[in-house]
């Protein structure tokens, strides 16, 4: 029987952020359980730059960003077990995990931080008809094959979905000698960050075909081609718009899903819009000693935000262990053009620090105001020239706004137009 104060499930950027913070706060026994063979999560296959601009004010590659935290964790005395899978969480404090050197392990812990990250949506999830040849990969799997295994999955590629991984892989594939014939996006606007659209597609003359999707897959053994077709506003394929593109590889970058199979078994409440746990500003779930952070709570744009979420979860676990309880809860409701928001609730503590909300809109809009409303009255607002679903909006609210919000049981966040 093992014992710990905090067990962190997942050693990616969220888990590492949480672990380091937990040690810094003086928590004694901090244990990371990681299913892969190294800490760092998906960062080691993200060999491009653009990491750490917010957190370190530096432009780092994924492995550089990960290495900083891995070294920090080692220095601080964070313990970790690699190649280790959590099989069950029982009674919110008993974890059953397994690896090949320790065998089955029962770990008793005061608090748990869920940091399992997310997985990629697959062909099945979007139900593309056609044959089932080799040559269809999710963008992340292709990224792993190329960057970590030194294996090129194909030479002539169509990418479905303009998410960030898809865009980055378009550039990466071009660099390693493959021909990217098109990036096909179902929506009328790109799903990835603008910087990636410019730096990964436009700079390499890779056509980004909007309002189109892959409608059929061909090839009995290996992929031989796909057809793409125009999608109308209702999501139907426009007749006679279909066009065949020969290719040997189809990469899918059609979204990420938080991995909450383990969370579900604990019985914590999940939010249908984020696909992640329902949390407060300290990433506390609806079970008081279980916290969740990073892409398991919602899919973030930037790893810097993920690290911050991890740190907040550690602070939450620390407060919980000190016995500091919250007196009151204010629910955050989604108003006009808000697709998702984290945290979904605020807990009021005696000493309150500013709170950051991370939210996404449902559709793009220009010249808007992102506002928080209490009983119809605005208590906070921020002007924004443009909002897009692909770019997360970060709202930081002060102690004063929190106090105003706390006079009621719920506040609403919504997007409104404004006049100059």
């Amino acid at each position, binding site marked *: 029987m093992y014992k710990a104060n905090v067990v962190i499930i997942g050693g990616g950027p969220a888990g590492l952020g949480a672990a380091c913070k937990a040690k810094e706060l003086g928590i004694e026994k901090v244990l990371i359980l990681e299913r892969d063979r190294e800490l760092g999560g998906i960062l080691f296959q993200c060999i491009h730059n653009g990491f750490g601009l917010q957190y370190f004010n530096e432009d780092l590659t994924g492995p550089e960003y990960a290495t900083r935290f891995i070294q920090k964790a080692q220095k601080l005395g964070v313990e970790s077990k690699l190649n280790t899978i959590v099989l069950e969480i029982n009674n919110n404090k008993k974890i059953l995990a397994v690896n090949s050197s320790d065998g089955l392990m029962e770990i008793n812990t005061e608090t748990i931080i869920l940091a399992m990250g997310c997985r990629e949506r697959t062909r099945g999830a979007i139900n593309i008809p056609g044959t089932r040849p080799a040559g269809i990969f999710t963008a992340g799997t292709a990224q792993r094959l190329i960057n970590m295994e030194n*294996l090129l999955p194909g030479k002539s590629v169509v990418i479905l979905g303009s998410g960030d991984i898809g865009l980055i892989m378009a550039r990466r594939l071009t660099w390693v000698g493959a021909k990217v014939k098109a990036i096909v996006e179902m929506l009328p606007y790109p799903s990835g960050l603008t910087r990636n659209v410019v730096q990964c597609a436009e700079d390499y003359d890779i056509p980004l075909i909007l309002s189109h999707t892959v409608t059929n897959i061909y090839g009995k053994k290996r992929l031989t081609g796909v057809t793409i077709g125009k999608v109308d506003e209702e999501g139907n394929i426009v007749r006679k718009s279909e066009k065949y593109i020969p290719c040997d590889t189809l990469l899918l970058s059609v979204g990420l899903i938080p991995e909450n199979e383990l969370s579900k078994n604990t019985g914590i409440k999940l939010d249908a819009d984020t696909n992640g746990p329902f949390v407060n500003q300290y990433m506390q779930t609806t079970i008081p000693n279980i916290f969740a952070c990073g892409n398991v709570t919602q899919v973030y744009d930037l790893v810097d935000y993920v690290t911050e979420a991890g740190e907040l979860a550690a602070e939450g676990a620390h407060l919980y262990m000190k016995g500091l309880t919250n007196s009151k809860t204010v629910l955050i409701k989604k108003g006009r053009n808000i697709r998702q928001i984290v945290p979904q609730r605020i807990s009021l503590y005696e000493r309150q620090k500013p709170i950051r909300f991370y939210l996404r809109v449902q559709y793009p809009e220009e010249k808007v105001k992102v506002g928080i409303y209490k009983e119809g009255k605005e208590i906070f607002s921020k002007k924004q020239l443009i909002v897009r679903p692909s770019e997360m909006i970060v709202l930081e609210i002060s102690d004063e706004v929190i106090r105003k919000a706390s006079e009621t049981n719920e506040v609403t966040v919504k997007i409104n137009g404004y006049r100059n």
Partner: protein
Amino acid sequence: MSDSPALGTPFLKESRADVAIIGSGVIGATIARELSRYKLNTILIDKEVDVGWGATKANTGIIHAGYSEDPHTLRGKLCAPGNRVYQQLCEELEVPFKRIGSIVVSLNKEEIQTLCELENHAKICGVPETRILNRDELHSVIPHLTPKAVYGFYAPTAATISPYGLTIALVENAQANGVNVLIQTKVLGLKKNRQAIILNTTSGYVHTNFVINAAGLWADEISAMSGEKEFNIHPRKGEYILFDDATGEITDKIIFSVPTPVSKGIVFVPFVEGNYAVGPTAEDTEDKEDLSTSFKGLKKVLNFAEYFFPEIPFKRYIINNFCGLRPIADENDFIIRPSYNMKGLIHVAGIQSPGLTAAPAIASMVMDILMDQGLKLTLNPYFNPIRRAIPQIKGSEYKTKEKLIKANSKYGHIVCRCETVSEAEVIEAIRRGATTLDGVKFRTRCGMGRCQGGFCTPRIMEILSRELHIPLEEISKRNKGSWLIKNKVLGSDNV
């Protein structure tokens, strides 16, 4: 651990056999295991790199109760007797088998007549314990069912099974009892001389007294090798959608719609592995290799699921779609008889639904034909009916897990996170004959879960490469043409 793949010899010039079976689908495999009870030299031949990769692989996985076909046809006669032996067969082979029962649901009062017909068939075919459920009974048994459902025809003996899992188990057991398995071997021709039939194959010649034509979709082409095509086989497409087990329990029974002349209709089935599937469509096609799904077909089966269970947001749970081809003979019935042209050749063709259910009954019918044709049967004293499944971490008791890991620490290394499959299970699957990603998948479920191989594919490739001593870039999905890797990124001539 052996150094070579466990299935078959890659090359032989000449060999002899008492019986050669063409096709390692569930029919060929069942017959092979039946023959292994006797002192015989039996050879099982398949053109694919693994067993059961034809019609068997993409199948609904239902062991039907046996009421749905005309009792005067072979399809009607052999179904219920097949069903009866499955419990014991699956115990011997350690194949998961769940006798969960099926319900044919009628959506209007007129269809009650068809349900009564089914009940009549059930009586003639000896299907036990069937009955018609009224509206209240129906809805109490299946709470999520559409309120439009008015009657149900309940058959408690229907069951679910993994068709490829069963076939792999049958072949393993047949092999253990002396059957030779020859994969990646295509039969090119049949020739009869005075003593024997000579099979010309891509792996050499096989001299044999009897040939079982269990070639599925290609059985008509094998029959043509006897001098004349004795029948035609038409492929009939069936498209399916597979759901994640995250749906939670929707029904613990197999749900059929009222049958039509071409098909038992679409089925909503709880797979033996715990997730649900819906399908198949029934559409005749020309191409025997056309395993493509269509927008129309998938829409049709999804509509079925949504119609019968209107509360379930099925779209959110789709993890994959697939298509199978059933071999349909001209007369729409099974063809199980000696060839008219060549003595010693026995056709087991047109084995469409309910072929999986009927397989054991078909095999005993074939045994009778063989004896009738002069095959001498002496019991094999060493026959052992027991085959052990690959022990799994998932679903096993704490103590069992502990024991497995103690005996082999690789049981503690989980390589497929969605289905909780350990490295030890993958290695054992390779030892038993898997040489491809799909081979590992069908033996262990690696890659069948919600991430569909996104995380485990590079891992499984690595283990295949290490265990089979072949370079990573030569690992394929299911055969030579289905390559996964073009070349190395660095250190290759192509870059």
